[in-house]
């Protein structure tokens, strides 16, 4: 290396050190003047993490829109968490609810709960739809990922830099659609009996290109579209490669580390409608996936409440898209099932965890 080159490298090195000093100073300035405002405007999840501490909760209930959605005819519009609270008047229950949330977000919310807290039990909803490509790459995911950046453990200015340089998935609509299409193709299907479609995309395509369903019954285009949505949302087989499974694994470890009792409750889906539209094959897959959760996390000391089949068709609010939005009867049934399980747990000798199929 020539002397001249060495001099240039030294000169650049000095400037680099200057730059680091400036960044340290700017980080302090940012923390004092802007960080709070940025969190307030762009990261509601942080506020959510602090909520159970402010409310001195001993049970926290993490959910997406299923918790608070209600039907216009409901006389009782209480959230599932509130209905659950009625079973435990001596406990303080805090719900951490954000629309379109999933295990990845729940993990970050739980991780950011301040060390000093009264929490004993964490109830996390398991939405089977959230394991499908349609949800993983949904357009609602981008704002959530942005919020997740703010929840990283890193200097404030560094986190803001990650936001500025879009260090999260920020697909355009075209890119996102392509990713979803690829994802649905990757939802491979392996039945223990003959099934004509190798993956969800092939199944979806077959249903989408005809005017009748599996039973030969002629139906409207809206019904076909709804069936296709069900197929894309539930025609997959859970495995440890699924990003949501990985997120739940992290939640389990975190709860163990922090000494919280973890209850996973599998949300009911409209099995009646799915059975009528897509047939028993899709129901088979859904049951298989729910069992996967039970078998994976039950032995790890997690209480799994399998509520997959406890809400009937008439208690589902939305008719044109697969959702987990229930009327008051549905919400009450879910709250009762979780409460029953919690009561059993309280009665059971310490350390013994159960799972329950409802």
């Amino acid at each position, binding site marked *: 290396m020539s002397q001249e*080159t060495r001099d*240039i490298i030294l*000169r*650049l090195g000095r*400037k680099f050190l*200057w*730059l680091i000093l*400036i*960044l340290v*100073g*700017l980080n302090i*300035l*940012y923390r004092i003047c*802007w960080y709070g405002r940025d969190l307030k405007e*762009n990261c509601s999840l942080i506020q959510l993490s602090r909520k159970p501490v402010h409310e001195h909760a001993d049970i926290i209930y993490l959910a997406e829109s299923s918790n608070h959605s209600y039907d216009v005819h409901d006389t009782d519009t209480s959230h599932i968490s509130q209905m659950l609270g009625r079973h435990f008047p001596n406990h303080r229950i805090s719900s951490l609810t954000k629309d379109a949330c999933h295990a990845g977000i729940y993990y970050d919310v739980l991780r950011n709960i301040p060390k000093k807290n009264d929490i004993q039990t964490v109830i996390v909803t398991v939405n089977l739809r959230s394991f499908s490509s349609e949800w993983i790459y949904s357009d609602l995911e981008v704002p959530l990922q*942005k919020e997740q950046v703010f929840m990283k453990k890193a200097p404030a*200015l560094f986190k*803001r*830099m*990650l*936001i*500025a*340089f*879009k*260090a999260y998935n*920020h697909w*355009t609509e*075209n890119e996102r659609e392509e990713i979803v299409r690829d994802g649905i193709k990757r939802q491979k299907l392996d039945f223990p009996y003959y099934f004509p479609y190798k993956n969800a995309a092939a199944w979806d395509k077959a249903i989408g290109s005809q005017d009748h369903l599996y039973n030969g019954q002629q139906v409207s285009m809206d019904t076909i579209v709804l069936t296709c949505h069900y197929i894309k949302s539930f025609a997959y087989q859970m495995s440890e490669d699924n990003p949501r499974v990985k997120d739940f694994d992290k939640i389990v470890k975190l709860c163990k580390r922090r000494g919280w009792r973890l209850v996973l409750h599998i949300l009911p889906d409209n099995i009646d409608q799915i059975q009528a539209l897509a047939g028993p094959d899709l129901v088979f897959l859904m049951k298989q996936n729910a069992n996967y959760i039970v078998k994976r996390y039950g032995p790890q000391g997690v209480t799994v409440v399998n509520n997959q089949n406890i809400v009937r068709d008439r208690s589902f609010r939305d008719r044109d898209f697969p959702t987990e939005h229930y009327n008051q009867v549905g919400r009450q049934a879910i709250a009762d099932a979780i409460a029953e399980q919690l009561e059993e747990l309280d009665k059971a000798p310490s350390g013994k965890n159960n799972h329950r199929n409802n």
Partner: protein
Amino acid sequence: MLFNSIEFLIFFPIVTILFYLLPHKHRWILLLGASCFFYMWFIPKYIFILLVTIAIDYTAGILIERWQSNARQQKLCLIASIISTCLVLFVFKYLNFCSANLVALAQHFGWQHPAKALSIILPIGLSFHTFQSLSYVIEVYKGNQKAEHHFGYYSLYVMFYPQLVTGPIERPQNLLRQLHEEKALNYDNIANGLRLILFGLFLKMVVADNLGSYVDRVYAAPETFSSLDILLSMVFYAVQIYCDFFGYSSIALGCALAMGFTLIDNFRSPYMAESIQEFWRRWHISLSTWFRDYLYIPLGGNRVSIPRWVLNTLIVFTVCGIWHGANWTFVVWGFAHGLLLVLERPLRNVHLFDRVQSPTGRTFIRALNIVKTFIIVTLLWSIFRAPSFAQLSDLFTALFHNGLMPHTLHINLATGIALASFLALDILIRNSRFDQWCGQQKTPLRWTLYAFMIFAIIVLSSVEQYPFIYFQF
């Protein structure tokens, strides 16, 4: 890969450091590999389209050189190369547009036209590298450039990552020559390159993106905004598109300069222009000179009769409009610029400026001309920005009818700072370039400016994603 992405912040230093670590004979491999990686970050399969263009023009260049003694063969080869290169551009950029227009025309006359729209995404930067490829073949044909026999170097000329996606559109005499030269580590090049990158990021992320949020809101529903808001959004768009594109060009120049390569300056304070003609000498210089050299002059330039000159000018600007996008709004935008340039010609003979003697008077006239040109250009940008004439009509209807509506477009701190910085910088560097201007300042001022820009880029940049406007072209 986007220049304003975290991936690029990692990619750029790695490539630059490796570039200086490698011996000269292996650098082209690194740069070509890096350029492919950079391009494939968007949609990998589109690299094959680029390879087709490269292969066509590489072969054409060699054949044209080989057939020096046969002018006819040379010309045929040139035409074949131009047609096939443009065909790729046509298929991906204009086929759906033509098809949609044919369908509309057929429907108008009551004919059946079974044309179906193709589901193709326009490969990013296709118009830019197509023009760069064409300039190579034409220069070889003209005898101004020797054909490049090394396929790797030629590919690198088309694919050189700093200017691959939105230019500047380089000429072989400038870039190809430099690619063969051995570049030594040079402090000034690195410092100036980094300054340009910082400046470009500031323009894009702080100025353009913050203004973009206002513009998008107004253009999405102009009927809900007051006339003042609409006027403001038009001005904002003029600043946004300039800072967006100038920002990208500055980063491109900076990345290349850090490795010792000098690219064409693409902008020279275009909003300081006193006429439309001057505006085009300052705006997107690499494109306007491309059209001048390869279309305007071959058509006869200005050494023709006035009617012919008018026709030439209108053709060049209309083609320039179409180059920007497959939409009638772009055609009209280009044609309007051409028309205004034609109308300016007789006015240029009115030597009002010469009759005014006092410096204050001259400055006043100059300022008046600058404002006049800015207003015209800004109004024309609204045609460019509108997705369709229906929406353009909505915009102008609201502009003339919503005068009494309350002003709702409130400018936040970030936007205020962005606008003020843009004005200050554009005036300060009007006769220079940011890196050169910055190099002349005293160290404390320079570092204060760096700190301000870094802080603004990180803290004041928009949390929303705004792709570079010229990516769609």
